[in-house]
């Protein structure tokens, strides 16, 4: 009656082995490590690099406990954080130009375990410390930016086509191109429609004459938004790489939001600074005709110009009109110029190269200003005299900078500008010490809760209580194993859910044990009482767990962040607890008591009413 076929025992045994194997890595702890990964695609990761890194560490007498080559990068393990920091500084100085040197933690579990995919649970930011940002892309800003670009492009092509116009103006979310006569407008209409397929052109008459209204087509608008978001994500990724974070998460949420998670980052101010940075380049012409001295004296530059001071040099007047912007840059590398001075070599895309060629041809003998725009602060890096036409789209910026500065400028230019402004709309930062404290809190809550429940149940139900508690331990083992294998993110609310699972999972065993006691009370023989107890309890167990599962699923689908972490563990905990309380505890009962004659069910003393109920 109370016997299981072999295959059921095998399933239980297999699940136990599985649970043990995947739970174990969590107990080995982690050791400090450094991760070396290429800064740019194209740099190869191979054993040569591994050897080089090892040699570099040997050269500086830094002991390490092992190194391995993985697709994501080279990982080197250290005994303590001091050595890790030292090694980082040396490696940063030696190969930091081409590689990202990031601090990381590596699980200490044996290699064969990792190879089986048995890894420790992935800890959320509230447990390991770090920063979580949610950024919202300002789509209105993106539109405004692209309108500015269109207006410059339209002006340029009208000039190239020699169509006289009276200027291009922003009007709300559209552009107004003004003309003096109808012929010019007609010609412009035809030519612009050919060149700017994303714009819808309409003839209008404005107050002072004829005009063309250019509106961005809706489909072009949505494409632009998608592109802006993509561009921003790429830019963020480049910048995060500069921060040297081991496992950053950058992902799109909804139509206009981006989540950035930087585990282990402690300097949140720097992180915010780098994420929000907008470094780009502008090329404008220097105005040498106006009276510079008067402008410096009065502080009032003539109309259409701005007053700047060249880096480490003299003041100069720069025209407001931007001829070329940083979004035409395809690459920027630090290097040296002919005089062996630090310089940044910039490569422009086709369009940029053409613009640059035209502008240098038309302005031979004049000075152009190269401005670095960072956080809306403009600085003239250099203002060289144009000697000849420069083709090929290669620009060299050199001007009183150190090689370190050249490197920074190159990095920022390469990392690119954001296509649209972004705003941080959610931030969650947890310091590393609080993270460790949270782990202790969560762990202790679970541990002491478990011990108290286990003691109580064992005293109350005796041998069957021991079986219930064993089933509860198996439940915990399976739950942690499952969480580890799924690499679900464990958060503090998730740990609360583990604790809660302990408290709730015992319900199933209590139901079973109470039913068995009922049956005995009603006079059933021991084996029949066990059988009926399990049999009748199962329906109730399923019912009550399914309702909790409904709540868990709702939490998962509507919840966000911490709530989701709670919901995942809750749902998995329900699944494992049904399995362990029904199958595992039954298996144990069958194994110990199924094959022999029982005089009495060892489930604690049972009180029987003197008078029968019915």
């Amino acid at each position, binding site marked *: 009656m109370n016997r299981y076929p072999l295959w059921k025992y095998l399933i239980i045994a297999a699940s136990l082995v599985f649970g043990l194997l995947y739970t174990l890595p969590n107990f080995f702890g982690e050791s400090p490590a450094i991760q070396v990964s290429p800064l740019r695609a194209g740099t190869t990761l191979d054993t040569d690099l591994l050897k080089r890194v090892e040699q570099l560490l040997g050269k500086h007498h830094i002991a390490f406990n092992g190194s391995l080559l993985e697709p994501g990068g080279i990982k080197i393990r250290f005994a303590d954080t001091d050595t890790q920091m030292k090694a980082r500084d040396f490696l940063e100085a030696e190969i930091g130009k081409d590689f990202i040197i990031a601090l990381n933690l590596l699980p200490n579990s044996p290699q064969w375990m990792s190879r089986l995919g048995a890894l420790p649970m992935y800890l959320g930011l*509230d447990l390991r410390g770090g920063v979580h940002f*949610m950024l*919202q892309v300002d789509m209105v800003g993106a539109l405004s930016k692209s309108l500015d670009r269109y207006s410059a492009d339209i002006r340029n092509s009208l000039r190239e086509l020699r169509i006289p116009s009276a200027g291009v103006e922003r009007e709300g979310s559209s552009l107004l191109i003004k003309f003096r006569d109808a012929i010019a407008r007609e010609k412009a209409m035809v030519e612009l429609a050919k060149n700017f397929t994303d714009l819808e052109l309409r003839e209008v008459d404005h107050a002072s004459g004829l005009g063309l209204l250019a509106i961005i087509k809706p489909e072009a608008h949505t494409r632009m938004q998608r592109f802006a978001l993509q561009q921003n994500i790429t830019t963020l990724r480049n910048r995060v790489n500069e921060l040297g974070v081991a496992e950053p998460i950058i992902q799109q949420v909804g139509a206009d939001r981006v989540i950035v998670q930087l585990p282990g980052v402690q300097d*949140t101010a720097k992180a*915010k600074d780098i994420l*929000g940075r907008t470094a780009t380049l502008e090329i404008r012409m220097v105005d040498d005709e106006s009276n510079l001295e008067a402008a410096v004296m009065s502080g009032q530059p003539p109309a259409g110009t701005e007053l700047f001071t060249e880096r480490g040099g003299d003041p100069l007047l720069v025209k407001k009109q931007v001829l070329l912007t940083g979004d035409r840059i395809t690459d920027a590398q630090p290097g040296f110029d002919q005089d062996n001075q630090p310089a940044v070599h910039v490569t422009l895309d086709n369009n940029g190269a053409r613009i640059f060629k035209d502008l240098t041809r038309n302005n031979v003998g004049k000075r152009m200003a190269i401005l670095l725009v960072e956080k809306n602060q403009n600085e003239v890096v250099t203002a060289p005299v144009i000697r000849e036409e420069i083709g090929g789209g290669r620009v060299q910026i050199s001007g009183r900078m150190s090689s370190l500065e050249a490197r920074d400028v190159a990095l920022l230019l390469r990392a690119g500008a954001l296509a649209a402004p972004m*705003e*941080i*709309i*959610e*931030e*969650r*930062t*947890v*310091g590393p010490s*609080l993270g460790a404290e*949270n782990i202790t*809190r*969560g762990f*202790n*809550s*679970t541990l*002491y*809760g*478990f011990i108290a*429940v286990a003691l109580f149940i064992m005293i109350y139900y005796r041998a069957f209580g021991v079986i219930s508690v064993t089933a509860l331990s198996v439940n915990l083992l399976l739950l942690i194993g499952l969480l580890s294998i799924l690499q679900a993110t464990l958060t*503090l*609310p998730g740990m*609360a859910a583990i*604790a*809660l699972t*302990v*408290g*709730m999972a*015992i*319900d199933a065993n*209590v*139901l079973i044990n*109470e039913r068995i*006691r*009922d049956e005995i009370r009603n006079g059933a023989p021991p084996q029949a009482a066990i059988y009926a107890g399990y049999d009748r309890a199962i329906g109730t167990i399923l019912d*009550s767990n*399914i*309702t*909790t599962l*409904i*709540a*868990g699923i*709702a*939490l998962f*689908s*509507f*919840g*966000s*962040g*911490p709530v989701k972490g709670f919901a995942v563990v*809750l749902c998995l905990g329900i699944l494992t607890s049904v399995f362990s309380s029904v199958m595992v505890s039954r298996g144990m009962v069958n194994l110990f008591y199924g094959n022999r004659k029982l005089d009495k069910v060892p489930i604690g003393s049972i009180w029987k*009413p003197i*008078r029968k*109920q019915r």
Partner: protein
Amino acid sequence: MEFFRFERDIPFMRWGKFSLILSLVISILSVYFIASKGLNFGVDFTGGTVMEVSYDKAVDLAQIRQVLAEQGITDATVQNFGTSREVLIRLPVKHEFSGGDLSEVVINALKQNDTTVKMQRVEFVGPQVGQELLENGALALLFVSLGIVAYLAVRFEWKFGVAGITANLHDVLVILGCFAFFQWEFSLTVLAAVLAVLGYSVNESVVIFDRIRENFRKLRKADLTRVIDNAITMTMSRTVITHGSTQIVVISMLLLGGEVLYYFALALTIGILFGIYSSLMVASPILILLGVKREDLIKQERKQQEEAVP
């Protein structure tokens, strides 16, 4: 060992009218507190910034307020939590500081005042995000309620669904009422606890309903009140042991879980205690009120022959 030794069924339903009136009063009071005092929504829902900073030694809160006031921040709530070295600063949404800049301003000002200050935790939530989180929370509550009613209606009968969910929403109302009355902070984790309670305390009703169904079969001659009284009495022991076990763990969380889990555990505690009460004294009297009959379930029995007990 056995805690409960009942010679005969406890006449729970004799007090049914009384308990229903009591629950009605409690519910009205809860609604009154929620309406008049309102919930003390945490930064998750209102938007704003919460910062947790720690010092090497005990720190004077007035001094911190002073430092903040110098930065033009006068509407901050500054309080100790845990020890006198740890300080929690709450700041409402400020429009002059964009995004996460506010926390930087505060920490820099505090550092100038005392260099030992350490930033432990920052939470900034923009107002638009807070609104969304609140809406999603309400949606989740609705979804869970409907899901449970539907499940109980299929598994038992619609009257059971209605009785079960009324009892459970009563629990939720009481939790919210307590949070409003004591002005405890209602955060995202507390919402998670409320929804977990909704799923968890319906267990209790399910266990009793299961017994009622069984008793309809077993005690053929008994009337409805006796069937219910017997069902509750028979499951009493399980009820107390199960909820006791859960409560042990929740107490462990309450004591050891730190301030993030404190209100979470508190909500669960109220939920568990009222969950027991409402399953016994709210759900079952409602069943009587709705006039549940043996035929309601026996009809279903025929469809589910495999459920028949040998």
